[in-house]
Every structure is written in C-alpha cells, then in structure tokens.
C-alpha cells in the first residue's frame, strides 16, 4: 500500500451462491480525494462498501482501509470510516440532539464532549433551529443532513456516502453536495461517493470509477476517461457522456 493510499482492494470478490456481485475489484483511493463510485443499480457498489466496512465477508481477495483489514479489525475500521447508507434510518421518536447523543455514545465519545460536538455539528449541517424537533417530522433533506452530522461525530478520516442526494429537490441536493465538498476541502476527509447523479459527482470528484455487473470497467480522472473514450479534442465531455459510452459498450 502506497503512503498516500487510504483505501485499497486487491482482487476483491463477493459471490452469492453462483451470482458474482463483485468480481476481482482492484481499487485505490488516495487520501484527501473525492472518488465518485458510479454504476447502475445492482452493479455491486453497496456490496463493495459493506466489504470495506467489514460488514460483509469477501469470498476472496483482500481490502485495506488506513492500513487495516476490515475483516479482522472491523471495529477499528468503523472508527475511521463514517458510512451513510442509501436509505438511512432514524428513530422517529427521538429529536436530532437525542439521536446525535445516541450515536456519540455508540462511538464511545466522552459525555463531557457530547453536548459541545452536537451543537457544533447541528450548526455545520444547518439544522440548529430544528434540534429539538422529533425526527419523525423531518423532511428527507433534513434527515440526510442529520445523517451527515451523525457520521461526522466520530471525526472520521473517510466518508462512504451511498446515494446521498437520492429523492432530494435540486436545491437541497446542491446544498448537500457543497457541504461534502467543504468537508473534503476543510477537514481533508476522503470521500467515496456512490451516486446516480453524474452531474453532482462531476462537480466534486477528483477521480471516478465505473462499475458494471460487479466489474470495475474504468477508473481515473474525468479528463483521462474522456481522452480514452473520445480521444484528444477541443470539446469537453460531461461525465454523463463518458459514462453512457462505457455503459453502451458493455
């Protein structure tokens, strides 16, 4: 593992009986970058994230997160990785502060620091006004913001964000993407962003990987992928055009 590589997988494979969800995945993500993890539904993105978190056992191959094996050191890996799943759930009868306090206690954060951290994070994600409102009454956008606050409470080095902006209105989605961008820029958090919204991914990603049918078919910066598919030219290609080109070829 290189000094600046924070996530690395070597021939990572996951099979469910005969179905191969992830096939020989070789991936490297550098520290401090935003990596766009793209692919259609069922491509194996979430399965990969779960294996990287130690929540799913790979059939073969290996993975390393900050030099730790997620399978053997799952607890340590989960201490440095914040994971926001596609359909993140909340306890509807708790308010935002109580929910954050619960997550903080699960992370073993000292009681004396919890109140301060909670206040700071609620302000960061912009839901201070609704801090004592029951989560059951939150909009989807507010829930996603609270979800981000919850993953940030442990001060992670890496964020796994699975379909962060799914079901959000364009303005809400834009605000969230800006928030992630600022977290990456200001706190140097490495981000692995799974999304179908290619425009948003293009906006903040340093590099992208395209996964189809469990295989990583392309990986690199948007410019390099465009060059590979469309050759040298004046025209700037969007990530959507590049993605569709790869997708159609497969």
């Amino acid at each position, binding site marked *: 593992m290189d000094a600046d590589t924070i996530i690395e997988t070597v021939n990572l494979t996951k099979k469910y009986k005969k179905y191969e969800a992830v096939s020989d995945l070789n991936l490297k993500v550098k520290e401090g970058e935003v990596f766009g993890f793209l692919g259609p539904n069922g491509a194996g993105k979430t399965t990969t994230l*779960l294996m990287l978190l130690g*929540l*799913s056992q790979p059939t073969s191959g290996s993975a390393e997160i900050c030099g730790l094996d997620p399978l053997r050191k799952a*607890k340590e890996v*989960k201490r440095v990785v914040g994971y926001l799943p596609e*359909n993140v*759930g909340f306890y509807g009868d708790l308010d935002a502060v109580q929910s954050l306090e*619960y997550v903080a*206690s*699960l992370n073993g954060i000292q009681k004396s620091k919890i109140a301060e951290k909670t206040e700071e994070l609620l302000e960061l994600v912009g839901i201070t006004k609704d801090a004592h409102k029951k989560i059951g009454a939150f909009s989807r956008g507010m829930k996603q913001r609270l979800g981000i606050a919850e993953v940030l409470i442990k001060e992670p080095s890496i964020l796994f964000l699975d379909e962060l902006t799914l079901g959000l209105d364009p303005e809400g989605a834009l605000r969230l993407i800006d928030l992630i961008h600022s977290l990456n820029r200001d706190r140097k958090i490495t981000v692995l962003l799974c999304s179908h919204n290619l425009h948003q991914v293009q906006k903040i990603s340093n590099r992208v990987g395209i996964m189809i049918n469990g295989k990583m078919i392309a990986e690199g910066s948007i410019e390099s992928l465009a060059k590979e598919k469309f050759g040298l030219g004046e025209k700037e290609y969007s990530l959507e055009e590049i993605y569709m080109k790869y997708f159609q070829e497969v």
Partner: protein
Amino acid sequence: MSGLFAVFRKELCDHFSSYRFVILFALIAMVSFITSYMAGLHMKENLEALAKTRFPFLMLFSSQGALFSMIQFVAFFGPLIGLILGFDSINRERAQGTLIKLVSQPIYRDAVINGKFLAGVATISVLLVSVVLVISGFGLAIVGVVPEIEEIWRLLIYILISIFYISFWLGISILFSILFKGIATSALASVALWIFLSFFISLGAEVAANAVAPQDSKSQTKPELFVKNMRIKETVSLSSPMVLYSKATETIINPMRKTTGSFIMMGPMEELLSSRFKNPLSLGQSMIVVFPHMTTLIAITLICFAISYLVFIKQEIRT
C-alpha cells in the same frame, strides 16, 4: 463495552416509555392484585379457623383466588411479556433502516443483540420484582402475617425462575425477529409457538401416552399400564416450558409439595387426614426436587439466546 451499554440503555428507555409495555404492565399488575386480594381474603377466613399454618405468606402466591393463583397466572400469561418485548426487536430496526446504522458504528455486532436481550431481561426483572413486592405489601396488610426468612428466599428463587421462564420467550421472539423480515410474521410465529408449547403439548402428551399405553375406561386398567401411561404423559409434557415452570415454581412456593408429580390419587378427606402427618420440605430439599426443571429451564433459555446470537452474527446486514 460502551456500545453494549449504549444499546442497553436505549432499549431499556424504549421499553419503559412504550405504550405497549405500560398497558401490559398495568394489566398484569391489576390481575395479580385482584388474584392476591381474592387469595388473601380466602386465606384470612381459613387462617382464623386454624391453630397454626406453616408458610401462610407464600399462600398468597399459590392459593387460587377467583380463577387462578399468581403463579398459574404468570405461567400462562408471563410468556406474553417476553414475546411483546422482543417480537420486533431486530426486524423493526431493519425495516426502519437503523440496523445498518447501528452496525456501522465502532461496536461489535454482538453488542446489538446482547444489549437488546439484556434490556429485555432487565425489564422483565423490574416488572416481576415490582409485582411481587406489591402483592407482598398488599398481603401483609390483609393477612397480617410477617414472612419468615425462608419464605423470602423461596420468593426470591421464584422470581429468578420466573425471570428465566419469561426470558426464554423473549429469546424466542428475538430469534423470530431475526429470522423473519416481516414484523407481523415474527409476532404471529411467536404467538403460534407459545400456543403450541403451552397448550397443545399436554394434549399431545395424552395422545402419545394413550397410544403407547392405552387405558380402557370400561375394564379396569392394570396398575403397571396406568403408571406407564402417566409416566409417558409426564415425560412428553415436560417438553413444554410452561409445565417445567409450573412444576418448579409450585414446588418452591409450596413447601408441603414433596414431588413435582405424584401418581397417588386421594380424595379431599384422605388428603386432609394425611396432611396432619405431613412436614414441609426444607428449602434445600425443595431445590433438589426441582433442580432438573430449573436447570432445563435455564438451559433452554440460554440455548435459545445462543441460536439467536449465532444467526444474527452470521447474517449479512444491508439495511
């Protein structure tokens, strides 16, 4: 340990603040209260007529009130507490998407299931202890007899056996909540198993006993055949946790009981006559009599939880 404690505290808080628990607790407290009140009144009349009765305090729990005694009530309806506390413990988390959030925190996965089970056991313990204390206080006021040390020990053992008995059902309901994705399915499966093990096993025991050692109602049955029939019936019915629990608690609460099952059939007058020469068993002897029942009850509770634990640990959690 911080993960386990956090889950435990959250679950305990949820149990005590949930309407279903409050309703169930109120119902159980009310029925126990009425049962002991009836038993107390009945005992008061009897005690006035008797010169000396041993262990009158325990009779509050073993004497039948209007319909049933306190221990019979817990034997029948205690499992419902366990089932209600656990039938949706895992699948509800899965359905609302909080399970993946929990397991992606830096805690061991078993902290989730251990925390939930321990919170359930703590809730059951609080419930049972408070009901027993309320009945004891109430009984003291009605009967006016202070319990002896041995009676207090017997009550403590009774509470302990009851905790394991109800925890067995808690373990069953947690297991079903892991196995079934639907909350309604796990609730239905838990209730179905409760009905089967509590009510149908005794019917099955009778069928099995009559099939192996049939009893002819017209002609007189041979004594050996009768004993064989009874033995089979008793052995088969022991596969019901309710039977195990009833036999264990009845022997612990009633020191005059010298066996968990007797083949001797006596009429009321014969029983009254023989009771003159009966002496109560000491606590140690009562414990020896019910030791197999107690260990079996504890074992099935632990086995049930161990199965839930293993299934949960092996399961892949995606939501």
